[in-house]
Every structure is written in structure tokens, then in C-alpha cells.
């Protein structure tokens, strides 16, 4: 089989994400989608603060580094002066929903044609596994050693549901990006359904931007290192816990991009 080099990826790029993390997978899907849609040359990625910030080492596209949580504002600034550019950010749940919630809501409420890919692993990953706004009740993190107490810190923030309350966003979707483990006698296989779904969501979100709308995709991923689990257990947790707390689904698709076969 011939492996095609994606033009949006540096040929000698080496994945430096922890084994078992889906961040690399998401960046690969973005590179594939840019190629498929023919928009690599006008793409500008805005880096947030968190593990996603390392993307500039792998992706060979224009890149602007944003302060913590401010990626939607930086994207708005770029898009306002360069309407032809395809502008997107990869943000984590801590970045987008804790420190950067105001910037996210305003970009969404104005319907700025930009795309936010939000990687939700329910903890602050880069800083070492502290409680995030998405940490579910009872989950043990470095700052909640006895589990998250929602009486004190409030329930988790449901970003897709929150953004659905606004009229201007055009595409809102939540998918699971962590592959589902399937036990076959003494072997464990991983399903490819999640990858296919996630890739479709990336393409649809970028298509929505090209059609002039704001798009937001939440990816339920894992952080086995900070969850202190094996890779296999973390994938199970993503499906048995994350996907139950945050039900995947298509919340809005104004232009009907998901129904059109790409």
C-alpha cells in the first residue's frame, strides 16, 4: 500500500503526545480534511494553551499562538481582516470552557465563520491532571483527591448544550474520538467507527466555515496518564463514563453538511 504524504504535515514530524492520547489522531484528521477540501494553503491554525499547543511542530500550516483561552478572540481578529482564510483552533476543555468561556461564547454568538475543535478529556492535561470544568461528579483528580464535589464546584459544563442556546452557531456536534475496545476471546481489538465519525465531523465543521458559519465539535478523548489508567482502561472509561455523561450527537447542522456524502 502506498502511504500518501499529507501536505499539511511535516514529513519528518514525530508524534510527541503520550501513547494512547487521541490528540495526534485529531491533528491527523484535520490535516486530511484540509487536503480533501483543498484548503491547506489558506489555513491558519490558532494554538491554544494545553497539549494542543504542540500542533505547530507537526502541522505545516500558518500558525498563531493564543494566550490561554483566547483562541476564539484571536481567530475572530484574523477572520475579520482576512475573510478568505480558513481559521480554526484546537482547544482543550480547560482552555475553552474555564478560562476562555467568554471568548468562546462571543465568537459563537456572533456567528464568526471559524471552527473550534474542542478536545474534551475531562482534566487539565498539560498541567498534570487537575479538575477541569468538564470533570464529572466523583472523578478523582490532582485537585479533587476525594472526587469532584458538585455541591461545591457546580456540575460539569456541557458545552454543546450551552452553545445550542445561541442562535448564530451553524454546526455543533459531539463525537467520541477514543476508539472502542472490543474483547475477542483473549485479544482486544479497537473499533474504527469512532475514527470515521470524528473525521466526518472535522470535514463537516470546516465545510460549515467555508459556507460562512461558526462550527464547533467536541471530541470525547482520553488522558490515560492523568486518569492514571492503562490505555485499555482509559478507552473503556471514555465509552462507559465520558460518553454517558456527555451523550454524543448532532446538536445543529444549519447547512445540512452532515447529510451530504463527501
Amino acid at each position: 500500500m502506498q502511504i500518501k504524504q499529507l501536505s499539511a504535515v511535516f514529513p519528518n514530524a514525530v508524534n510527541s503526545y503520550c501513547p494512547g492520547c487521541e490528540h495526534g489522531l485529531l491533528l491527523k484528521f484535520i490535516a486530511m480534511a484540509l487536503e480533501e477540501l483543498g484548503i491547506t494553503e489558506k489555513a491558519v491554525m490558532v494554538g491554544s494553551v494545553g497539549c494542543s499547543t504542540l500542533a505547530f511542530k507537526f502541522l505545516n500550516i500558518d500558525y498563531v499562538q493564543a494566550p490561554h483561552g483566547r483562541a476564539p478572540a484571536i481567530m475572530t481578529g484574523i477572520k475579520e481582516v482576512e475573510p478568505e482564510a480558513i481559521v480554526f483552533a484546537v482547544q482543550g476543555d480547560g482552555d475553552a470552557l474555564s478560562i476562555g468561556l467568554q471568548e468562546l461564547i462571543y465568537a459563537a454568538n456572533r456567528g464568526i465563520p471559524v471552527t473550534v475543535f474542542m478536545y474534551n478529556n475531562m482534566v487539565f492535561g498539560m498541567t498534570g491532571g487537575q479538575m477541569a470544568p468538564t470533570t464529572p461528579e466523583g472523578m478523582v483528580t490532582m485537585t479533587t483527591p476525594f472526587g469532584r464535589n458538585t455541591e461545591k464546584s457546580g456540575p460539569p459544563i456541557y458545552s454543546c448544550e450551552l452553545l445550542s442556546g445561541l442562535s448564530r452557531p451553524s454546526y455543533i456536534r459531539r463525537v467520541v474520538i477514543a476508539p472502542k475496545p472490543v474483547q475477542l476471546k483473549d485479544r482486544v481489538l479497537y473499533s474504527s467507527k469512532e475514527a470515521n465519525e470524528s473525521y466526518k465531523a472535522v470535514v463537516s465543521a470546516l465545510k460549515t466555515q467555508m459556507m460562512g458559519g461558526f462550527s464547533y465539535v467536541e471530541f470525547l478523548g482520553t488522558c490515560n496518564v492523568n486518569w492514571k489508567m492503562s490505555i485499555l482502561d482509559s478507552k473503556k472509561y471514555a465509552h462507559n463514563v465520558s460518553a454517558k455523561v456527555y451523550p454524543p450527537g448532532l446538536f445543529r447542522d444549519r447547512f445540512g453538511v452532515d447529510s451530504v456524502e463527501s
Partner: protein
Amino acid sequence: MRWFQVKRLLMGAEAIAEAAVDAGLEAYFGYPITPSSEIMENLAILHARHRSDKFKVYFQSASEVESINLLMGAGAAGHISMTATSGPGLSLMAEGISYAYTSEIPLVIIDVNRGGPGLGNVAPEQSDYLFVTKSLGHGGSKGIVLAPSSIQEAMGQVRMAFELSFKFRMPVIILTEAIIIHMLESVEQDHQFPVNVETSWSARGRKNGARHLINSIYLEPSEFREIKIKLEEKWKAVEPLSECFMCDDAETLFVAYGISARIAMEAATDLRGRGIKAGVFRPITLNPFPGKMLVDAARNSRRIVVIEMNEGQMVHDVQYWVRRDVEQIPFMGGIYPDTEEVLEKCK
């Protein structure tokens, strides 16, 4: 290149807004705050009336935190962008200024000082001097700081700020006071062509060439050391500017900037009439501080008197450079210097 000149009576905010658009402003992002809001209001009108083809974006943000990031986005894409704010807003922008400095993003901020700290009041003070010259964001970030003492000069400095911000690819602050923004003065409008800026480095999509990286993270210390050396060398190339008013034989030398310098000049003229040799040294760039020029201007003076509208901020810089006793006449709380009071204290 001059087309024609007109003399008009303009309010500071109106003059600055027109000067910015004429100098080639492409994007204005702002959040209202007294006493700077009139700049934004005037720009809203100029944008709606299509005063310039280049002035495409006028945008009211949700906070100053958002403002600075909108500016950074537009600046990273290589467009001339500006905001106007006051002390409390500038505090919120400090985070972004720090990122912009390391990422080498050009942007222009007009800081209309108000009484501080805290909410203070909206009367004229020069309370942000130390903030803008010494601690503009975490990690030792800085920006070029210009201080106009008249509306005419403020208009010229807006154009200069656009040019400097792109030449050195760093934030430029115009530090001014509510007096300059709200008073009316007769000004000449030089209808020059908009400034030309070099944008080949900017992030607008790689467009079949090499990609553009606007970045402030360097995890490898040896790499970051090289970046910091480069930034420091760039900073050293910024030329300080100053004005000397009857300094040559001045035995009493006032040191003041902005509107305080105008008042100091009046006091110096008055003192000359009474046979006292007085002069004024006025820093035009507050950062970099024109220290060597000050030392030169102060070589014949017996008294050095710093006049500023705060508890004494620039006085530290003056002391550092002249290395002898410096007197100061502070005006605080939003009360601006009164010539009589200056003369009284100089007896």
C-alpha cells in the same frame, strides 16, 4: 508627500481618530472606557462614512481581554490595528501584550490615563507611567511608549506608532491624558498617503510558500535564549526621542512629559521673565527613556524639578540618569498642574 493642508479646530479624540484612519488604520477593536471612549465613537462614524477604503474593520469587543486578542489576531495577519483604552482596561490587556511582544505582533494601543489605582476616577492623571514603561505584561515584555503633549503631536504620533509597530514588530503605546483627548485645539491636517508596511511574515495562509509561525512558546531553554537575545537587540535599535525647551543655559530644569510639559513650559517662560534661567526637558518616548539626552540637557542645571500628575513615577528614571538630587512636584487625584502652583513651589 503633502497634498494640501487645512487648519481646523478639533477635539483631541476626533483628531486622533481622523489621523489614524488617514494614516492607514485597517482594523479598530475596542471596549468603551472613560476617558477614551470618544476615540472609539469618532471611529464608528468614520467607519460608517467610509472615510478610507483601508479602514474595513470596526468592532466592539466584549472586554479588554477580548480586545487585545482581536488586535493580536489582526496584527498577526499583518493588518494595521489599534485600540484605545484607559488604565483599568490596559491592566486586562497586559496578558496579551506579553504574548504579542514575544510573538513579534505589531499593534497600537492608545492609553488615556485616568486617576488610579483601582477604579480611581476619570480625571486626568499620569498614573500609568510605571506600568507602561516598566511592567507591561509578565516575563519582561515591553513596548515603545510615545507621549504627545499636544493634539497636533498626538496626530503625528498615531502615524509614527503604525510605522514603528511594523518596523520593530512590537506593541506601541501612545500614553496620553484626558486633557489631550477632550480639549479643543487648532490643528493642521497633513493629508499624507497611508503608511506602507511590510507584511510578508504574516499569517494569512501559507499560499504555496513556506508557512508562517507566530509563536511565543519555546520549551527548549537554549532556543529561547537565542530568541530573547534577538528581541533585546531589536529593542536596542529603537531610538529615544525628546524635546528641549530653553535647556541650554537652564539653571532650573523642569522634566515633564505629555500635558505636564506644556504647563512646565509656561512656568519656565514665566520664570525667564523674572530673570530665572529655566528650561524644560520633555521625553517624547517614555520607553526607551531618552536618558543620555536628559544628562546632556541637565549639564548646566543646578535644580532639576520633575513635574508629573502622579505620586512620583518618572522621577525614578530621572534620578537614575542624572545621579543627583532631584526635586519633584507631584499632582495627584486628577488635579492637573497649575502654573502658579509650580512657580510657588520653585521659589
